[in-house]
């Protein structure tokens, strides 16, 4: 039997045992959570140390020299920026509008279930498959050739389902009672969305979109098949070195090339390239977080 309840509410031996287990459990969970931080710090620390000899503003602004074994990464950095902005310029509007339809208008019928299923499955397609699709659809069928446009569109298709999912989540977090309040004064759905839903969901939507920047910037396979090249001669510091129907260099691709394809590269250059890639992604993420915090403080409910 259980021990009889006592009036003085002091811990019985059993309770003390349970509390010891509790403490143990808490520390194990804490340890696992803290362990998350370790790889990140190790990666950044390791990269920074190895990259140190090359890291400078000059490295970012200069073009690769002596058959890519020295010099900087300017063309690759600009190429990545081109690709990321162009792909998000395509996928963000489509994704956001589609998510609004799915979350605010769509009834639960077979057609919308098919759309949902398509979105989910598209999100699960490996990037190399996207790459093959991009090659077939944009490079050959649409006759864009190996070009920035083909690469950006491939990246757009890759990021689209995640943007739809995160936007839907942001929209769903706006309480339904707000919508009902609008409808009950005779507002149409679109009026309600514009007046109440979007202003309150915008921080979540933007965060979801911005977080896709890091994915678009980091993927190598889709652009390798569709529009990225090993090397392209570019003027030092030129802001608009590429036409959209040309191929371009990109950071992720450049990193791959330097590490595996080019002999005699100065040892610190690949690491410095990785640092620039990681740094720009972290910078964008930090912007996303501060934007979110700023928009949150204006939201009072």
């Amino acid at each position, binding site marked *: 039997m*259980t021990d*009889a*309840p006592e*009036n*003085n*509410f002091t*811990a019985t031996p*059993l*309770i003390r045992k349970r*509390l010891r287990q509790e403490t143990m459990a808490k520390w194990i969970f804490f340890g696992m959570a803290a362990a998350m931080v370790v790889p990140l710090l190790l990666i950044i620390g390791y990269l920074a140390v190895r990259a140190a000899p090359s890291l400078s503003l000059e490295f970012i602004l200069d073009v690769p020299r002596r058959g890519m074994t020295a010099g900087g990464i300017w063309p690759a950095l600009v190429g990545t920026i081109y690709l990321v902005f162009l792909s998000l310029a395509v996928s963000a509007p489509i994704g956001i509008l589609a998510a609004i339809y799915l979350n605010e208008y769509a009834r639960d019928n077979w057609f919308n279930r098919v759309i949902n299923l398509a979105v989910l499955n598209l999100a699960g397609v490996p990037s190399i498959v996207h790459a093959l699709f991009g090659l077939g659809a944009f490079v050959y069928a649409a006759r864009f050739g190996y070009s920035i446009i083909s690469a950006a569109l491939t990246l757009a298709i890759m990021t689209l389902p995640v943007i739809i999912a995160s936007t839907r989540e942001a929209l769903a977090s706006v309480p339904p009672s707000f919508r009902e309040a609008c409808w009950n004064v005779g507002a149409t759905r679109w009026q309600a969305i514009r007046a109440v839903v979007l202003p309150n969901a915008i921080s979540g939507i933007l965060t979801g979109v911005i977080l896709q920047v890091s994915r678009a910037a980091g993927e190598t396979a889709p652009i390798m098949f569709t529009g990225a090249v090993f090397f392209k001669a570019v003027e030092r510091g030129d802001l608009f070195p590429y036409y959209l129907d040309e191929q371009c260099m990109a950071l992720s691709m450049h990193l791959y090339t330097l590490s595996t394809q080019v002999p005699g590269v100065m040892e610190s250059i690949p690491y410095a390239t990785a640092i620039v890639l990681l740094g720009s992604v972290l910078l964008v993420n930090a912007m996303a977080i501060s934007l979110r915090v700023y928009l949150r403080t204006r939201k009072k409910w």
Partner: protein
Amino acid sequence: MNAPSSHSITTRDLSLWYGTFQALKNVTLNIQHGLITSLIGPSGCGKTTLLRCFNRVNERYGYVTTKGEIRLLGKNIYDANVSLQALRRSVGMVFQRPNPLPISVYENVVFGLRIHSERRALPRRVLDDAVEKALTEVGLWHDLKDHLDRKATTLQLEQQQKLCIARLLPLKPRIILMDEPCSALDVEATRAIEELIFALKGHYTIVIVTHNMAQARRASDECIFMLLGEVMEHRRTEELFLTPANSRTSDYIEGRYG
């Protein structure tokens, strides 16, 4: 130890702040052993806060500060050697919305026993007995004895709330706190729960927060009227309703504000 005379719960100069807002002001009370005491008062007067002090649920929130003394069965519950687990085992709580766990009726009733005992100390027979006894005590045994494996969340609300009370009983609590236990229920179910509360009287000290003055009048022996964090009046229920000593009490029970 040595519970003084006939009081289960006594507080001395109990004050509580949520941040800078003072929710309880120098509350001094003696709640009788074995009776049903109701806490009434307008919204925001501190009834629920006071109730939640008695099993120290409030302090989970970091911004709550408490001053003063609370004695349960003669023991100061803020003493350093008080274990929250042991305290809450002896002080049960019933909530506004029935909150049975999403497991079988049987497992709901023995949940507390399992929490507070080693596995080998609980042979099947002990558990079966505990379930039959607890469900009989709340009047569910007849209806549910053949459905003990039903998921508790599929019961009717009234049965759910009774089950939530039954869940406390195997631990042999001394005090049962109820926070508006009927406000999610319809008239019939409310009557059933009130009858149950009456049947439990004597074995347990019951403190019940209610918005419903008729319920306080029907279902309690003593009544405490609170206003803006202070205790205005604490007397036998019929006296409080028939001859309130405080003019604010009479205004409230006549419905001039609330």
